[in-house]
């Protein structure tokens, strides 16, 4: 009987105190089953499918009007605008203050627990990207950050002490890290920025415990390698994989987008499709080998990186269950792909599109004439910032709705003469032209658009004053949070697009001031919604 009591107690202890144990540790299993812990926001996109969706339901369309700031954390150092999407685990929020400072906050009060700032060189090269990091990853007892000078650093989750640090690429030639890393079973995966100086893109995997590099996948080939024939004998440059990917543990594939070829706006020196730039790669995370690829924009000359975060979902098509993924791409098209094979399933424009009249049966753009940058500027929609740039979408699996923050803006594209000599990587920007967004502000706007996930058909839209840089956040209570470019954070009814609540965080009429990705979490039974404006992190809750 005594023994039975002991085992019952042990069983009860094991069943009832996971939070005690989990406060010490974030094993891969918890990340894998993140849906069962909606109080936490475990990673950049919320979960491995990158849904930016929460099952929390305390804040509803009925009571959201009562949402109030619970706390505000002001950045501790000046710099670029905040572009962070925080991670919350067991009541602790991990934020990134630009460029690469990691701070752990008490998620209930906003009080700082520890903060770590890398010793950066006096001059950090950031040609073509912002000196800001978009988030961290957590695994076991560590927090991982990619720094702006291109180091991947593992920090102790309790103290911020450095456990290990590795260099991915030379910042002197423009390699830098802005993406949040991906943490999977025993591995940390990340890719650097830098294509605007012509650096060769790659994706790396590291041993999460030791920092030992497990593999490196170059996103563009060496001369003579498969794919090099698509560069027409020209220099093979660019393809930086500078945003985060998604992960399917069952198929054991990660899905990662690649950036533009270089020079950006003049493709004369690289005739061909320029593989594997502006593409989605399905990669085996154990080996770093590509299972399949899909190129959104062959021979890109508009700076339309293909680095948008894909959303993984399952659906029935023609009566058959399918494993799919969808991407709202910078070139203005919404794509649905089979994530087992890479087969193109569907694709439609989600913004005004004058570059291509549509996609062919294989998903290749049917490019319209006079859309390549000219020696005189050529007006093309969307702009060089695209139908959407790096800002993630959200997906509500209950209503099967995909939400994208769409940019309705065109730009004048022009190309310039290329240098006569081969490019020396890292000696400066090699844009080969420019995409200038000089259309009147009144002729451009932003819109949160709700799309049917399998067809891309629009369900509703919510128009904003200007194109915005804020990801949507969807909840199971049918709310959709986001913010406009002037700094108004708002909640919409995710079934209709109707505005239910808004709060002004700051910003101005003529400048872009808000670039964050809101998240939601729960501490001590209270749901919070976090949103950052340019300079502060704000957590909202009901009274």
């Amino acid at each position, binding site marked *: 009987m005594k023994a039975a009591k002991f085992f019952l107690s042990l069983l009860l202890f094991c069943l009832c105190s996971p939070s005690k144990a989990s406060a010490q540790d974030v094993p891969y299993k918890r990340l894998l089953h993140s849906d069962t812990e909606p109080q936490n926001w475990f990673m950049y996109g919320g979960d491995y499918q990158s849904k930016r969706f929460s099952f929390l339901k305390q804040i509803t369309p009925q009571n959201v009007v009562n949402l109030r700031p619970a706390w505000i954390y002001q950045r501790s150092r000046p710099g670029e605008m905040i572009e962070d999407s925080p991670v919350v685990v067991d009541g602790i929020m991990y934020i990134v203050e630009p460029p690469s400072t990691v701070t752990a906050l008490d998620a209930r009060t906003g009080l700082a627990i520890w903060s770590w700032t890398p010793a950066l060189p006096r001059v950090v090269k950031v040609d073509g990207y912002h000196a800001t990091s978009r988030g961290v990853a957590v695994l076991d007892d560590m927090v991982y950050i990619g720094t702006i000078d291109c180091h991947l650093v593992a920090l102790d989750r309790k103290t911020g002490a450095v456990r290990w640090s590795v260099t991915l690429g030379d910042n002197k030639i423009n390699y830098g890290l802005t993406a949040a890393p991906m943490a999977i079973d025993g591995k940390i995966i990340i890719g650097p920025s830098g294509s605007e100086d012509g650096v060769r893109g790659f994706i790396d995997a590291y041993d999460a415990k030791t920092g030992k590099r497990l593999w490196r996948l170059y996103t563009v080939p060496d001369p003579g390698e498969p794919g090099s024939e698509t560069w027409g004998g020209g220099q093979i440059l660019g393809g930086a994989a500078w945003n985060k990917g998604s992960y399917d543990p069952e198929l054991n594939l990660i899905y990662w987008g690649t950036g533009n070829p270089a020079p950006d706006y003049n493709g004369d020196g690289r005739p061909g499709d320029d593989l594997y730039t502006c593409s989605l790669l399905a990669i085996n995370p154990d080996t770093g080998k590509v299972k399949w690829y899909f190129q959104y924009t062959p021979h890109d000359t508009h700076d339309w990186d293909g680095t948008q975060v894909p959303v993984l979902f399952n659906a029935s098509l023609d009566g058959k269950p399918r494993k799919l993924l969808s991407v709202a791409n910078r070139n203005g098209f919404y794509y649905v792909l089979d994530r087992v094979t890479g087969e193109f399933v569907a694709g439609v424009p989600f913004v005004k599109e004058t570059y291509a009249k549509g996609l062919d049966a294989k998903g290749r753009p049917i490019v319209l004439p006079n859309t390549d940058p000219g020696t005189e500027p050529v007006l093309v929609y969307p702009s060089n910032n695209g139908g959407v740039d790096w800002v993630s979408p959200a997906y509500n699996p209950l209503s099967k709705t995909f939400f994208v923050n769409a940019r309705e803006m065109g730009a004048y594209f022009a190309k*310039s003469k290329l*240098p006569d000599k081969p490019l020396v990587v890292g000696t*400066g*920007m090699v844009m080969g032209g*420019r995409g200038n967004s000089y259309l009147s502000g009144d*002729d451009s706007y932003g819109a949160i658009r709700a799309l049917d996930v399998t067809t891309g058909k629009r369900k509703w839209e919510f128009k904003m004053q200007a194109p915005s840089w804020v990801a949507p956040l969807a909840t199971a209570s049918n709310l959709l949070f986001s913010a406009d*470019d002037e700094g108004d954070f708002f909640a919409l009814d995710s079934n209709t697009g109707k505005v239910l609540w808004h709060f002004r965080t700051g910003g*101005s*009429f003529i400048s872009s001031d808000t670039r964050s990705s809101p998240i939601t979490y729960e501490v001590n039974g209270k749901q919070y919604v976090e949103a950052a404006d340019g300079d502060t992190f704000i957590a909202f809750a009901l009274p």
Partner: protein
Amino acid sequence: MSAIRSLAVATLILVLCGLPHSLLAASPNGKQQAGPGAQADLDVGRQAYVANCSRCHGLYATGGDGPNIQRAPITLGNDGVIKIIKNGVPGTMMTAFNLDDTQIGAIIAYIRSLGRRNEPPMPTRGDKVKGQTVYDGNGCAGCHTIDGQGGSLGPELTQIGSLRQPDMLRQTLLDPGNALPTTAPNRDRGKWVLYTIFRAVQRDGKVVEGMRVSESTFAIVLEDAKSNFHSLSKANLRSLEKEPRKTYMPSFKDTLSAAQLDDIVAYLSSLRDLSDTRNAQ
């Protein structure tokens, strides 16, 4: 004043006062001044400038995300500009550019062809002393400020001769609705037309008309013809319509004689005080 400070002040002036698009479109590109050979160089320079520099510095070097650089070749010299283009400016968005010497030389020639703002006023047909009388006699000071005197509804004119050419000033006097100034172009948001008049009908039917001072997705602030500010929540509006080409500035097409027009243009062109008056004793 240091060169950098001069540039900063000039940029600030532009941002505050706005520069009409039509003026930009009419800015000299060297065609009038240069011979055939030089013209070819300027075309090369213009293409290289548009492709490489205009995103930050504006199509006519008057500034955008980056500073106004129209006078950079004068204040820094060609070598100074070459150094900046080749090496960038550490700590700023100005990065090094991979351009050959021919292209850089053509870009500098093009920028020089634009740099007219601080040169002696272009000759005008009118008499600036008589022009001041025309200005005083036609109620202009009711809306515009010169040297601290006047109204606030329209743009301040203390430095207007440095900002706009005589032809543009003439066009503004004749057809002001077609010559509204804009904000400096912004990479993410484009440029915005200032002094745009909106007509807002509220839910109770009350109509508010005024110039847009500020606007967001949820609210707009209008300044009416009597300089009263109206803060309006868009949720409370039945309609909000832009009134294109409408302006509170009247056209002087039928009220001024040709000679009076020449005179007031001469007067406005003479207003070229670019000194930094903030610290003046």
